[in-house]
């Protein structure tokens, strides 16, 4: 029975995502599109942090690199679809380079290295006015037009983003279910043992950063045509922390965690707007309560409820046989 539950839930989620903007105005559709985009960015960080165990506080900087590369190229007349591979390749290479410090430093120290990188990118974007427009940013980036299908309307852009999100999710699913995914988890759980079993932990660490950063770049490349205006402040350290929050709240190391986490960070505040001035306080309190009771994130809540109502699954199936070989 359990075999079909997951595909059924995924199908239901896709149908809900298709129906979500129906009958909604431009603003709600914009919020939903933002949710999809940040889900992609969080998916990337989830690979780096959740699966491979490498802390990164620089995901917003990769959104910036992807966003600005796409913006500059589309403003120069490139089609978005042509600018995208350039932006993604750039993010992959820079992500790979950011992975090198992770070969030497771990934990809090690595967090600070990535945080410094995010600050560096922010300062470059702010100071190199000749290229990035400085504090004023870049405006007027066109949305992709495919002849028969233009993304100029907010709903159309939503469905365009949804398609890309599904493709990105399928690729991520492929990666994490492949032997690479198993090796990423091994890197997170016991890197010394993994290395002793032939896993090239150096290459894997670099790949975790590079792939995660590419997803950040993809999210940035989608922000550019969505907002049609980008400026450095949208990609500061605070935004990297927001993406980290999405991963942690959703459930780090769980495939669907980023979608839930991005939903909490992007959509939940919209639901709380009726509380007016109190919404940030309520939102913060909700996040704290959530993390205290489900440290594994919202995905962990499912297991918690399952254990409570259906009884805890017995992990030790050997007790009757005794802890022996014979």
């Amino acid at each position, binding site marked *: 029975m359990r075999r079909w539950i997951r595909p059924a839930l995924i199908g239901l989620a896709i149908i809900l995502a298709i129906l979500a903007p129906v009958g909604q105005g431009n603003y709600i559709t914009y919020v939903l599109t933002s949710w999809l985009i940040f889900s992609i960015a969080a998916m990337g960080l989830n690979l780096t942090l959740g699966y491979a165990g490498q802390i990164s506080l620089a995901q917003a900087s990769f959104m910036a690199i992807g966003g600005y590369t796409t913006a500059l190229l589309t403003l120069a007349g490139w089609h978005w679809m042509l600018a995208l591979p350039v932006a993604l390749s750039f993010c992959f290479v820079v992500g790979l380079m950011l992975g090198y410090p992770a070969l030497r430093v771990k934990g809090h120290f690595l967090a600070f290295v990535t945080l410094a990188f995010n600050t560096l990118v922010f300062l470059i974007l702010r100071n190199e006015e000749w290229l990035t427009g400085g504090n004023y940013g870049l405006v007027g980036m066109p949305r992709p037009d495919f002849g028969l299908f233009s993304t100029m309307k907010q709903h159309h852009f939503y469905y365009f983003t949804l398609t890309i999100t599904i493709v990105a999710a399928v690729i991520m699913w492929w990666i994490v279910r*492949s032997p*690479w995914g*198993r090796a990423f988890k*091994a890197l997170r*759980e016991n890197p010394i043992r993994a290395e*002793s079993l032939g896993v090239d932990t150096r290459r894997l660490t670099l790949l975790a950063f590079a792939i995660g950063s590419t997803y950040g770049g993809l999210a940035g490349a989608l922000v550019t045509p969505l907002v049609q205006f980008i400026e450095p402040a949208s990609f500061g350290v605070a935004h990297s922390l927001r993406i980290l929050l999405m991963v942690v709240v959703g459930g780090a190391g769980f495939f669907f965690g980023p979608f839930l986490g991005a939903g909490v960070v992007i959509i939940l505040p919209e639901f709380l707007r009726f509380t007016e001035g109190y919404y940030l306080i309520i939102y913060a309190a909700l996040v704290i309560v959530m993390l205290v009771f489900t440290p594994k994130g919202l995905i962990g809540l499912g297991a918690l409820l399952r254990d409570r109502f259906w009884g805890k699954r017995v992990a*030790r199936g050997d007790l009757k046989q005794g802890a022996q*070989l014979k």
Partner: protein
Amino acid sequence: MSAPVLSVRNISRSFGGIRAVRDVSFDVQKGEILGLIGPNGSGKSTLFNCILGQLPPDAGRVEVNGKTVTGMRASSLNRLGVGRTFQQLSVFPQMTVLDNIILAGQEHHGTMASRLFGPSDAGLTEAADQMIAFFRLTHLRDTIAGSLSFGQQKLVDAAMAFMAGPSLVLLDEPAGGVNLTMLGSLKERLTAYNAEHGTTFVVIEHNMEFVMSLCTRIIVLAEGAIIAEGTPEDIRSNQTVIDAYLGGG
């Protein structure tokens, strides 16, 4: 006689003023089970780490099947056919037993690209099931490894070391913390594997009964140097060894 599977030549390693390993040399032949024993602080673990590339020796070299591997990374060493177990628990606690075993073999199959585009089990489920069955863990195949008992995790650790079909396995205190019943079974499984596959073992162990009954040859270290070498019977009656363990002489 064919070339030794493991050849350790004049290995020395110091920490500050302390000479942890002093000019140690020995060979291990194919199919041999060599025990490496010695009192605490005798340099066993340092020597082990020098052989496995985790500590660069100050002098000397290590050869595996005639190839110099001194200071080689653990992953490269593993791909050359060197497996190992750890003194501490070293399974991947959030993965199932099956995934632990598959992981131990997957890096030996295909390229990075083929592992990405190939099947999720790297085509190893059958081989992993055989290895799990060999260590009589079939009833725990789909159990999360971190929830197993200490002894069972030791068995998973051992099964992982053998999954890639190594020519040489270094076992770091395999008996440590394992109950008596399981200890006998572990020894029986290791002996059976050695007999079936002709795999060479080097075992560091404190449990004298275990090491004397498992190994065909024993090297005794004290203060970083080899003080005795021979069959278990020779070692048992060697006065220098008795003195080293009792602190006499």
